[in-house]
């Protein structure tokens, strides 16, 4: 049994990594629910954004906030471009899985071609800074990432819940034809949500560049666990995603502390399978 402080440290890192899962999953969840696109390429977008952040912050010496401001509109447009292609070739939900997987592999190769297969590490003065509270180290950038994840999830949730556009998106996901008859322009909203999904990849990318070592093969590392969080949280439900991400992050961290790191991936999938069996209609 690990000590209390080690356990507390694990729980904290589980919570913080939950923030990363939320940032990674949001775009996936939104495009799955509202565009019927299971966008595997999203993970490649995230790493493209991470490598670009590495370039902008590490090589060009920009401040991370400024790098994010530059990347947000770029990835908004990338999201729209992908959606344009998917509409242009009328790709359905299942086919989108295959097509976006193809794009994922393509982008991974592109990243490897530009930045090589070597590990890249963004060295900043603040990247690994942490403050000590009691016996626990609190990493500052990861805390910031967590707060950004909470804010983004809550704002997206409120936007979907309270605005006309959000309601139109939900109505359109349920019944696009009738929503259309009441004036909802599904295509325009689809581009908007595709752009927003893309922009969330930029946010996740900047943080990954700051807190983690980059390698092309990393692109798919979080795929499984993020899928689990997206499905557990409910498609198109940002708050559900946040909660699911935290549950998975903390359970993983505790599992790692109590057993061995190799057991961690089992946690999310055990949870996922359990929930799929218990409430299949919710997915």
């Amino acid at each position, binding site marked *: 049994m690990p000590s209390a402080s080690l356990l507390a440290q694990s729980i904290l890192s589980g919570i913080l990594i939950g923030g990363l899962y939320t940032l990674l999953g949001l775009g996936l969840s939104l495009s799955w629910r509202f565009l019927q696109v299971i966008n595997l390429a999203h993970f490649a977008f995230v790493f493209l954004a991470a490598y670009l952040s590495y370039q902008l912050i590490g090589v060009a010496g920009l401040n991370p906030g400024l790098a994010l401001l530059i990347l947000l509109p770029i990835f908004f447009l990338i999201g729209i471009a992908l959606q344009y292609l998917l509409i242009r070739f009328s790709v359905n939900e299942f086919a989108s899985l295959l097509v976006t997987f193809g794009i994922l592999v393509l982008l991974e190769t592109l990243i490897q071609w530009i930045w090589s297969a070597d590990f890249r590490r963004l060295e900043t003065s603040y990247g690994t800074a942490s403050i000590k509270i009691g016996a626990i180290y609190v990493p500052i950038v990861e805390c910031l990432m967590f707060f950004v994840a909470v804010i983004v999830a809550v704002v997206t949730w409120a936007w979907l819940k309270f605005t*006309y556009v959000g*309601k*139109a998106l*939900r*109505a359109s996901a*349920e*019944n696009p*034809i*009738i*929503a*259309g*008859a*009441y*004036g*909802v*322009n599904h295509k325009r909203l689809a581009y908007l949500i595709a752009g927003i999904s893309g922009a969330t990849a930029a946010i996740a990318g900047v943080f990954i560049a700051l807190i983690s070592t980059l390698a092309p093969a990393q692109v798919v590392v979080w795929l499984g666990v993020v899928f689990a969080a997206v499905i557990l949280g409910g498609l198109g439900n940002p708050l559900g995603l946040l909660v699911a991400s935290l549950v998975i992050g903390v359970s993983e961290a505790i599992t790692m502390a109590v057993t061995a790191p190799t057991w961690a991936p089992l946690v999310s999938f055990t949870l996922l399978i359990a929930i799929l069996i218990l409430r299949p209609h919710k997915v």
Partner: protein
Amino acid sequence: MLEVRALDVSYGDAPALWGISMTVGAGELVAVVGPNGAGKTTLINSIARILPSRGGSIWLDGVEVTALPSQAMCELGVALIPEGRRLFVGMTVEENLEMGCYRPAARLHRVQGMERVYEIFPILKERRRQIAGTLSGGQQQMLAVGRALMARPKLLLVDEPSLGLSPLITQQLFEVLKKIHADGMSMLLIEQNVAIALDIAERVYVVEGGRIVSTGKPKDLLATRHIREAYLGEDVEAGSR
């Protein structure tokens, strides 16, 4: 108000409507009756432009709208109450009403619109935070009517509002539709229950096999043997008169 000229509609290669021509005048209540599979829903969906047509044209206040998308029909003041209600069942009652007034011109009148709907259907006000899918059939139909009213339409397209409702609820619903019409709304009503349709409508089209087979005022149709035999179940041959 509405004019349909020689409309042809098919599902893939299977034709469903042949050369339908009809009109609805301003403030008029016109009913379309006919047996199952006659093409009534096809007609009304095509007028709402959620179903494309293969030939013919549709005109609204003298303007051709055949090439317009359904969103534009909504902007022009046509609201559809579709067959089977087709509510946004995962959303609340209030959100369904808000989707009714999604078009910008109607959105400005959201508050008055909602007051009016809640005045007509007080039960919807009580249930405004409830998920639409959990309402009873009658309440769902009320919500479908309310959603359409929120769009501030000039022309209401109503497809079989009585579907799946008890006779009592049906009667109450028709009282409301009558009232809405009396306040000046033009209405195209599809109804399987011919007795009700003939009672409420000013003019009636009878559709069979994708064609209009007869048309006229309810009292004229009531005088024809075909209507009485086929739709009102009377045995004219052995009739008592």
